[in-house]
């Protein structure tokens, strides 16, 4: 564990003048344009935005899976060109190796680094213990619930002691209660490891609850519409979600996203008149019910 805590002041992500377009038959598709973001060492930063605005694109560029069309991505001043174990990633689709047990999954990064078997077994056990998963070390992933799979996914990404952790809607497929528990676990791990986190989510509450700062993106082509600091004190409790401070932040972010989501859906929907709809629902018109 000490190895992981060795560089608490590392993990500075810097994305400058970033744009990225995909090639397609109809010509280039501009996914993200003119974007600057940064994550300070040890900071927890979220990206929210309407569906299809380029959040995953941005995150994948930081991970090194995509090359920016223009601009530059650096971590601690070093240019990112290709994936590396320095940047751990957690995917929405869990992405555990089905042919490896829970422990073997967690060991994978250490094995790639050439750590001897007994040593990495011990390391994996310790980490699994921290996530409350020691009883499942010999299970194959398809026997686990979604929440457990994602816990393994996070532990696996952290096992190599990366400088930054990137998460792309990691809890998107989980039910509400599991989500809350997972948020707690993630917060705990982040605080212990003092690692920088870049977190993509659809869920505004989740973004506020977890983050030090939230970037809100515009509809496609995505760019940064607003940067919202979250001054809520830590440790954060579930009860804070009812505080006026939280609710004010929530309202602000909500209206920003709503504006963009409407744009993303084509604009016309803004004035979708209810008067045109005369569907009968138990004697009420749809407009009344809504």
């Amino acid at each position, binding site marked *: 564990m000490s190895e992981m805590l060795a560089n608490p002041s590392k993990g500075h992500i810097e994305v400058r003048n970033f744009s990225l377009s995909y090639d397609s038959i109809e010509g280039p598709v501009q996914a993200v344009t003119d974007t600057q973001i940064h994550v300070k060492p040890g900071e927890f930063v979220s990206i929210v935005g309407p569906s299809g605005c380029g959040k995953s694109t941005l995150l994948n560029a930081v991970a090194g899976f995509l090359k920016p069309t223009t601009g530059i991505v650096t971590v601690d001043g070093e240019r990112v060109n290709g994936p590396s174990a320095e940047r751990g990633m957690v995917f929405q689709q869990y*992405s555990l190796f*089905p042919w490896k047990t829970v422990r073997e999954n967690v060991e*994978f990064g250490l094995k790639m680094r050439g750590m001897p078997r007994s040593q990495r077994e011990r390391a994996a056990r310790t980490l699994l213990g921290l996530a409350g998963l020691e009883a499942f070390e010999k299970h194959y992933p398809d026997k686990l619930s979604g929440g457990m799979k994602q816990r393994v996914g996070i532990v696996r990404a952290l096992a190599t002691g990366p400088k930054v952790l990137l998460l792309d809607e990691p809890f998107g497929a989980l039910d509400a209660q599991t989500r809350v528990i997972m948020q707690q676990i993630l917060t*705990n791990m982040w*605080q212990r490891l003092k690692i920088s986190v870049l977190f993509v989510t659809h869920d505004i509450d989740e973004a506020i609850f977890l983050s030090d700062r939230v970037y809100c993106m515009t509809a496609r082509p995505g760019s940064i519409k607003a940067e919202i600091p979250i001054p809520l004190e830590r440790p954060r409790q579930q009860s804070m979600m009812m505080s006026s401070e939280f609710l004010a932040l929530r309202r602000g972010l909500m209206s920003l996203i709503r504006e963009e989501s409407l744009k993303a859906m084509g604009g016309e929907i803004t004035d979708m008149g209810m008067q045109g709809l005369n569907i009968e629902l138990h004697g009420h018109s749809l407009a009344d019910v809504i």
Partner: protein
Amino acid sequence: MPATAVAEAGPAPAAPPKTPPKTPPSFGTLALRWYRLNQGRLRATAIGIASLIAFLLVWHLLTTYRVVFFVRFTNVPSPLAVYASFTKAIHDPKFLMHILLSCRRIFIGFSLAAIVGVPLGLIMGRFKLVHEIIFPVAEVLRPIPAIAWVPMAIMLWPTNEQSIVFITFLGSFFPILVNTLHGMSLVDPVLVRAAQCLGARERSIFREVYFPASLPHIFTGLTVGMGVAWVSLIAAEMISGQYGIGYFTWEAYSLVQYADIALGMIAIGVLGLGSSLLIRGAGQLVMPWRST
């Protein structure tokens, strides 16, 4: 920071709550539980046995009454006659040699097909250029049934034995290659990415992701390939063999030993079944994550 359970579960965790010592369940309850758990399987086995017996019975009746109804059962041996020739054959070293030779041909031909087909499929799936070079040739050769190769094989190989093994090889090669390729094309790219950002390089990704991810399809290929290997072998033995269970069956026809025809057929069926069971067993050994 709050002392949450997750953060502070140190190296000395509280002793896990022990289940109170229970009296072991009686034999009766155990038997009942076992029965409940295996009810479905027991039922399937029972019905399976009954249906096999029914099959034998119908066969017996059709042959003892020499039924002629479009098909003629006049000369077809009865199950008892086949059984009689079976008891005779198992003491006959010649019969055993036929079987052994067929098995050896299958073993060599099929093993070669797997040793060439699986790695080739993996490499073709990973490297576009190799795929682009080899795939067209494979696509042209693939639809040609292995049996159609018999004359060519006899020309190509100096001995009969080699040409028969070659036919067996060809029969199983293409199913193995095609299924391996298919497995490679279905590898989830997210898993490759996951491996990459855990520090895996090309070689490790190949070994730790592509290969295990393709294994289920590789085993489908091996199973199908084994089936086609037997089909091809028997045909080749009937046409050009001197030994082997296919030759035995054909020879029985020429020598008007009708019971031996059925015996040969059944032997072929049992050998085919046995070899596909072997492959399935190997699959379960190699892919423990897929069993149960």
